[in-house]
């Protein structure tokens, strides 16, 4: 490159648009939790293939047997095989958790959007009610409804848990809807003639779905915990219907006979599933660019 050539004026040479490196969200993806969760859920759904014994059969000879070759996870005080009980029971716990969340989310979406769009006084009233509903201890409410409905089965329990779990999601949806409603692209869309359903479909729904996902996932978790607690206390599913909760309700007697496996094994499954759900939920909530601390 001669000096003369170096100094010739070449003007603007638009630099090649370097493709901006896509910030991959894979970095923080909770692989372990997702794999574990799917494994547990799949095994529960395919319980029939895995079950070695009939979970409901009361094998009176060998009750309270420690885990051995035949009974992989041992048997409980009524002689039922825990291994097959885990998969069969798991399916019920998960279905209740799922149904309850579907019900809770549905009520929350309706309640939240109405409250978000309603005039100030109605919105205030609905939020006061939601707050009071939220501050009543959840279990007492469920317990109260449960006692009234009498004997529980999978469906009634899901409805009861669902009906008492909607308040927190509703509050989040209401704040989001209120925020989106006043944002400028909704004002612009309304100026252009966008009617209520156009705005709801194109602008409101897609925007508040993402931020509600975290709450929905957490609701599945709370529903499963509520179900197992109720069944443990003898208020949820009766003994004959096997779920992780009802299996643990035999733990009282197990404590006397110091048979640890009746308590530990169902418990570990329950805690692992809940842990995976929480990790997935937290991953969804992590805002993409958290500003660094100024401290």
């Amino acid at each position: 490159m001669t000096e003369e050539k170096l100094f010739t004026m070449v003007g603007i040479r638009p630099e090649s648009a370097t493709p901006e490196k896509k910030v991959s969200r894979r970095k923080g993806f909770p692989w372990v939790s997702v794999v574990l969760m799917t494994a547990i859920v799949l095994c529960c759904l395919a319980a029939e293939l895995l079950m070695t014994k009939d979970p409901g059969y009361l094998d009176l000879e060998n009750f309270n047997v420690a885990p051995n070759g035949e009974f992989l996870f041992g048997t409980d005080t009524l002689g039922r095989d825990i291994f097959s009980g885990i998969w069969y029971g798991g399916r019920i716990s998960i279905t209740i958790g799922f149904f309850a969340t579907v019900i809770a989310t549905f009520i929350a979406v309706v309640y939240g959007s109405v409250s978000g769009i309603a005039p100030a006084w109605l919105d205030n009233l609905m939020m006061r009610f939601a707050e009071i509903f939220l501050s009543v201890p959840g279990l007492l409410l469920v317990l109260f409804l449960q006692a009234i409905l009498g004997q529980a089965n999978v469906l009634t329990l899901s409805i009861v848990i669902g009906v008492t779990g909607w308040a927190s999601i509703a509050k989040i949806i209401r704040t989001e809807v209120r925020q989106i409603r006043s944002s400028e692209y909704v004002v612009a869309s309304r100026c252009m003639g966008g009617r209520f359903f156009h705005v709801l479909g194109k602008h409101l729904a897609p925007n508040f779905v993402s931020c509600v996902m975290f709450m929905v996932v957490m609701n599945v978790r709370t529903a499963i915990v509520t179900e197992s607690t109720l069944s443990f206390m003898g208020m949820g599913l009766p003994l004959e219907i096997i779920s992780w909760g009802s299996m643990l309700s035999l733990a009282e007697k197990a404590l006397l006979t110091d048979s640890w496996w009746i308590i530990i094994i169902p418990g570990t499954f329950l805690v692992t599933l809940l842990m995976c759900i929480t990790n997935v939920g937290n991953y969804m909530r992590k805002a993409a660019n958290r500003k660094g601390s100024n401290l």
Partner: protein
Amino acid sequence: MSEILLDVQRLSHVFKLGKYAVIKAVDDVSFQMKKGEIFGLVGESGSGKSTVARCIMNVYKPAAGKILYNGIDVCDSRAFRKHRKMLESSRQIIFQDSTSSLNQRMTVEKIIAEPMSIHHIKPPRGSLRAEAEFQLSYVGMDSSYLDKYPTELSGGQRQRVAIARALSMEPELLVADEPVASLDVSIQAQIINLLRHCNEQHGCSILFIAHDLSMVEYLCNRVGVMYHGKLVEVAPTAALYANPQHPYTKALLSAIPVPDPIAERNRSHIDFDETAFDREGTMVEIAPGHWVLRKEDSQ
């Protein structure tokens, strides 16, 4: 059709706070806009200029006064419903903060095509995508941006997409609510050139709302100055900047810093005494097209 595109008559709007406190955001404002004109509305924050813009776009229902657009009073709901289609397509608005004026969940193509899809108009250039592409190239962006999301664009590009969306319906009136306030100087110039280009080529008149007075001086034909909800002075740009009449306009113009060190150093700015500002008084025409808010007696 009369030459006046927009005629705002004694517009007033109040915001209710709690049961008793009421804030008079816009107080008895009247002005007209001719077709093909760029009318600047300036004032500091809290002066009510954005509220006027939103009343004109029917976002707020004003407490009092009339707004005639092509002879139709947009505030009267019956008239509005009769001409709804025309009103909604021929008036468009663009906002200051480009991040919140575009839906983050929609691609650029859908954003630009939204007005057309709302009104189910058959796009003249074949598909909605082709139409969006044409509008995008008009505002100086190539079609590779069609499938991008607003978060992937810079501030200037987002504002261009907002303008493309507004222009896709060939509007007669474009209300620009501080379109360049949050952009850098060099990008501001690009957007201002684009707006001037739209005005000249499309003949669409622009209501330009800003607090950057040097930009208004460059772009607008006539300027209105607002203070605390009152319109204090309206005049052709040259006349206003040459000899401002109202004390507030004088203070405002003297406060603009000029990029010239020597001139700037020995220039002291005039202070405006808020207490002396009296809200009553009518618009007196002291020169052709130059109106000032003044008490009747003091001529």
